[in-house]
């Protein structure tokens, strides 16, 4: 479904990614793990089109998307839930969600998805008239993920959903991702909480200093010596 081929990327004079290659198959739940500054967010931002790659290629459903502007990538079915969330803080929860379905033409489909999302996150329905900017951190993450789902994406890129959340809220967010996964949405998850991430994902890629150093099924990775030492602290 998604394939990165020798991707080089970065900001102006600072190259962050050096020949990153990996593949995500349809229906998979993939983790991208690595230390701070390894280039995990840069990878997601490049796939979403917010950063133009310096070299290599990104193939989505057989088509190269490396020169596609972000709004068209979003319309092709890739939904990026950024670390900064990028919510519309001066708008209500419902308006945020409806804007998530901006590219969906039929109003029927929009409302159906909205109902489904409210079923999935009842908390958002309770707060649908509240301004997004006045919600708590956990609720905002939920809203960002929910907004990302409103376009019925084929692939979701989720960036550090547990960042800044207390543990029980992190659990809620992971639960939401697992629900999504059951719906058949392909997910590429970037996370700091390596232990929990390896528990819920199918496969994992380890990114260090802008290069993929290791990959494999999540359970195997959990048993791996290097991963245990560097990320799990065992």
């Amino acid at each position, binding site marked *: 479904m998604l394939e990165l081929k020798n991707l080089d990327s970065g900001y*102006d004079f600072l190259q962050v990614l050096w020949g990153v290659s990996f593949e995500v198959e349809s229906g998979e739940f993939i983790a991208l793990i690595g230390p701070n500054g390894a280039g995990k967010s840069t990878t997601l931002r490049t796939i*979403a*089109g*917010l950063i133009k790659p310096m070299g290599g290629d990104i193939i989505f459903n057989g088509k190269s998307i490396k020169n596609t*502007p*972000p*709004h*068209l990538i*979003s*319309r092709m079915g890739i*939904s*990026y839930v*950024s670390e*900064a*969330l*990028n*919510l*519309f*803080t*001066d*708008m209500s929860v419902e*308006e945020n969600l*409806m*804007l*998530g379905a*901006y*590219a969906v033409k039929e109003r029927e489909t929009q409302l159906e998805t909205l109902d489904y999302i409210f079923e999935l996150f009842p908390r958002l329905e*309770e*707060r649908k*008239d*509240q301004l997004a900017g006045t919600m708590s951190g956990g609720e905002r993450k939920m809203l960002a993920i929910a*907004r*990302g789902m*409103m*376009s019925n994406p084929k692939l979701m890129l989720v960036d550090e959903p547990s960042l800044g959340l207390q543990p029980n809220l992190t659990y809620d967010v992971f639960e939401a991702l697992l629900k999504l996964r059951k719906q058949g949405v392909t997910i590429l998850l970037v996370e700091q909480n390596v232990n929990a991430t390896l528990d819920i994902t199918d496969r994992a890629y380890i990114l260090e200093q802008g290069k993929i150093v290791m990959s494999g099924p999540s359970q195997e990775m959990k048993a791996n010596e290097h991963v245990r030492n560097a990320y799990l602290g065992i």
Partner: protein
Amino acid sequence: MATKTSERPKISVDLITRMKDNLPVVLVSIFSIILFILIGIKGGPPQIFNIIVTGGMWALLATGLALVFGVMNIPHFAHGESFMVGAYVAYFVFTPLNQFFLSTGSKLLIYSGPFIAIIAAGLVGSVLGIIIEKLVFAPLRHRTKEGWIMNAFLLTVGLSFILTNGTNLVLGPNFRGIPRYFDVKPVEIMGAFIAVDRIVAAGIAIVTIGILWFFLRRTKTGRAIRAVSQDETGAQLVGIDLDFIQTLTFSLATAMAAISGASLLFMFQAYPTVGVTPLYFSWYVVMLVGLGNIAGAIVGGFIVALLQSGTQLFIGLSWQSVVPTIVMILVLILAPSGIFGSEVKGIQEQ
């Protein structure tokens, strides 16, 4: 407790917290109301109507400025030239049209003339907006990495020079005006006689603002405009085409300025530098309320009109630019982000 708060009407909760948070807003509101009552007592209905006409027009112009700043981060100093273009278009459409309509003798045609002229001005304005955006700002935006606000500001100043002097070159510095749009007797409202032109201008301002408000709040594209002004990246991530929204915004703002230029043709006339006064006053408004704050710009338009009218009545006509300027300086010293503040992306970033 939590359920109780969520059941309470949202507006009243918002209002109370906002009043507590925003002392300047409360003070300005009280001051405006007192001033309004004083003007009402001294000047009577004509003055009040004056406030509605000028306030509505400043609001129309300032909303355009607020939109352009909020969505595109452009401090637009060529906004007065859009007003000027509107005035010229209205003049050149209205004069021959009116003559032709008068010769037919049909009242319906004669009364529809001004509206045709004003609508034509709006259409020309929106096309001009698209041309300017595509020709000037879009290329710069795609190349700029930093210093956008400053670069954009300089561009608008240059644009203003070109448009003013270009008009001067082609059409000359002559004043082109009309005595009135509607050749009918003034209407009596509460014992005062008010020209139909003013009533129509006030109506146009209110209707245009109303339509814009509905568009921004209730339609998908309007929401997309607000989304871009609140979070550009977020807007791109949900599939909003930035280029389209920015061109549309600029076109809307230009059209609104052109409409106000056209509806005030009977007051201002058309000449190359006619845009200067409206430009300054609409900048007073946006600085007073906070750059990029659209709702604030509407209220601010009327506050500035109140100030002008109050100055005229109580201090003297020649002070009517001085007092708003003093108020603006005070606002910049005491509440630099404007009395209503603004949450525009970009101000903090750049």
